[in-house]
């Protein structure tokens, strides 16, 4: 452990911080996407499938075009039709958005594996990182502070979405639709269309989240790439009480929790490695238990989400 000796035990918080930033990025994008969709009064559980599809497409397009940014864009654009399909089918009579989401998740994952076979071997150009650790001579510090540009984009996107929901016409209309579809109809808004667009936007963001996985961290395309970020995002959005800025904090928390295992390993603590790797999931459960109530529903929840169809 010669590398770690430079900063010793401080490697753990540093590793957690670096990990928080690295691992949180896909959580952040996919949870912002789910947040947009749920604000309109619908749940899209299919984002996990969209995410894997996005990861595959980004890797393939980046490899074929040579530009990782075109890969990111492609991933987002692949997410849009997935969102559109979910949005359109959900608006049909007697279609349940939850069940449909599960089907869409399996479809996305299966399709990505099928189409992605030829891209497991080749190496695609990666997304660049901003070397925020340039001031340090220590390799470990520099590695931890290599911040990806997508994370910075997410940092800007979260408050922007908050402003979008508060102060712009489309954002406000989206909230009305999610809070009271009947009122939205009375005002002359097309509820299904608003939800269609919200689900498409959610799909775009989930696709972008996937591109981060294949193009930056872990940074390759294979069938074990996603570890359920798309599903975890649903829990994150509830935890964040449907607030984009709180989605950012929640993602960072989850990212940090995921980094505990690797960070401890880097300073030589290897016992219980797999246990620490389960930290984000245990955290999810604990948060859900702590914030749940048998008798209350959250006042922040878009009211249309509780409507059973």
């Amino acid at each position: 452990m010669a590398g770690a000796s430079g900063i010793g035990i401080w490697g753990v918080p540093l590793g957690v911080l670096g990990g928080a930033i690295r691992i949180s990025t896909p959580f952040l994008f996919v949870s912002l996407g789910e947040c947009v969709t749920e604000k309109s009064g619908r749940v899209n559980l299919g984002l996990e499938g969209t995410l894997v599809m996005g990861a595959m497409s980004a890797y393939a397009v980046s490899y074929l075009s040579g530009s990782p940014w075109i890969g990111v864009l492609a991933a987002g654009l692949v997410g849009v039709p997935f969102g559109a399909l979910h949005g359109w089918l959900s608006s049909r009579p007697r279609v349940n958005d939850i069940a449909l989401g599960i089907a869409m998740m399996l479809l996305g994952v299966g399709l990505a594996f099928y189409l992605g076979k030829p891209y497991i071997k080749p190496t695609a150009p990666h997304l660049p990182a901003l070397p925020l650790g340039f001031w340090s001579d220590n390799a470990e510090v520099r590695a931890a502070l290599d911040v990806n540009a997508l994370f910075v984009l997410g940092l800007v996107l979260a408050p922007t979405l908050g402003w979008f929901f508060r102060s712009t016409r489309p954002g406000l209309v989206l909230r009305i639709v999610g809070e009271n579809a009947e009122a939205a109809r009375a005002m002359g808004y097309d509820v299904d269309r608003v939800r269609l667009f919200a689900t498409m936007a959610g799909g775009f963001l989930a696709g972008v989240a996937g591109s981060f996985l294949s193009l930056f961290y872990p940074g390759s395309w294979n069938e074990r790439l996603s570890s359920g970020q798309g599903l975890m995002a649903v829990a994150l959005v509830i935890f964040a009480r449907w607030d984009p800025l709180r989605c950012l904090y929640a993602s960072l928390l989850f990212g940090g929790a995921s980094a505990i295992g690797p960070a401890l390993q880097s300073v030589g603590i290897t016992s219980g490695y797999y246990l620490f790797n389960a930290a984000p999931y245990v955290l999810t459960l604990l948060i859900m238990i702590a914030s749940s109530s048998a008798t209350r529903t959250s006042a922040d929840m878009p009211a249309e989400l509780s409507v059973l169809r």
Partner: protein
Amino acid sequence: MSAALASVPAPPALEAVGITKRFGDSTVLDSASLRLAPGSVHAILGENGAGKSTLVKCIMGFYRADAGEVTIGGKVVALDGPRDAQRHGLGMVYQHFTLVENMTVGENLVLSRAELPFVVDFAKERREIDAFMERMPFRLDPTRIVRNLAAGEKQKLEILKQLYLGTRIVILDEPTSVLTPAEADEVLSLLGTMAKEGRISVLMITHKFREVVGFADDVTVLRRGAVVGGGKASELSPAQMAEMMVGSEVPRASVKRSAVEGGAVVLEVKGLRAADDIGVEVLSGVDLLVTEGEVVGVAGVSGNGQDELVEILAGQRAPTSGEVRVGGARYGGTRTEISARRVRLLPEAPLKNACVAALSVSDNIGLRVFDESPYTVARFGVSRGALRRAAEAAIRAFGIRTPSADAAIGTLSGGNVQRAVLARELDGRIALLVAANPCFGLDFGAVAEIRARILLARNEGAAVLLVSTDLDEIFALSDRILVMSEGRIVHETPAESADLGVIGRHMAGHS
């Protein structure tokens, strides 16, 4: 303020001529016509299902009428939904609020506009709303969250919204159904004043004579989709209007109220507290007693804790503190307790709250007893034959109109669903009957019959707790009247000496 308004031209006249609307085979509106004079208040009076809502929805362009036309200011228009209506100066206030609960008063006003800029400058909007409120005869704080407004304030906001949009013809669908009598009077007289000043014309749907007599200039009476009468409201008596509304058929199956000797206490509620789904306390220490052979009516504006009280008695909600005793023993609303203490329930919206819509009429009637002898086979089996025979007897006894005992109960009309629930709940000897708005949304015939059955149960010695937002119903059935407001019982009076005005004041939270 009236100096500036005097220059505003009067609202245009609205006329509907020969409106006919069919849904499938049934004609809901048959050549209905009415004229709304500029600056007047016009009431559309009629029973449930008379076609009042359909008529205004045809005018507003929600429905396309099969025949007939609408003119505004003498010009024929074919409105194409609420946005189009807004352009013609028409706006509607619905029976159920169309406000966004999690937003502020100001946001709700701004969002109601048809043309919104892409980025909404709330600082500027706020100044304009303040200026707008200055001109209004009544005001609301634009920063308050709608969720926290009282029902009367929400209704005022709905009306403010229409005025904010520049609506000249305001159409209201039963605007007072969620208000206390005092709130209703306030809202209606505001509308009347604004109509007199020539700011607006008002077309309102109602089934309350009091509102027609007190606030309307003209009235049109609908029965079964046809206009059966109308004219100047001042020239018609409530009796004449009632006759037009119900025609010759007034089946008042009246049951004599037999004197029941002061019986034992059956239901005892002590210091009951409970919270609603988002944790706000809605029952703040309710105490009440109901004895054998007594109907205790709980009056109140909906949303003052009545729903939660009924849910606790039905075992659907746990109280945060306090206790409920039935027949002297603690009662928690479990299935065992309900059956042992002989507690029965008639909830409102019975299809939703007391039935499984997809199960057959027979299965629904058997829901309370299917796992008890004589309906069981070999201990854990259910005898469908026995259930069916019992159900068929109940269908005959209660006059439930259903194609067969095997039809899904969801396919029956509201009155027949409630009859099936009555058949189930009133079977056998009853100690306590809890009824919550049992006649809500039912037609005249079913209402009379259901009320008669409730009185019959009382005469046989049952203790009856009747929770209702319909004061007529409370007065018709109760021996003793309680008023519930903000989660407390705030007033109690014997029915024979009860005073409507006093009860109304207590409902509104003033004593």
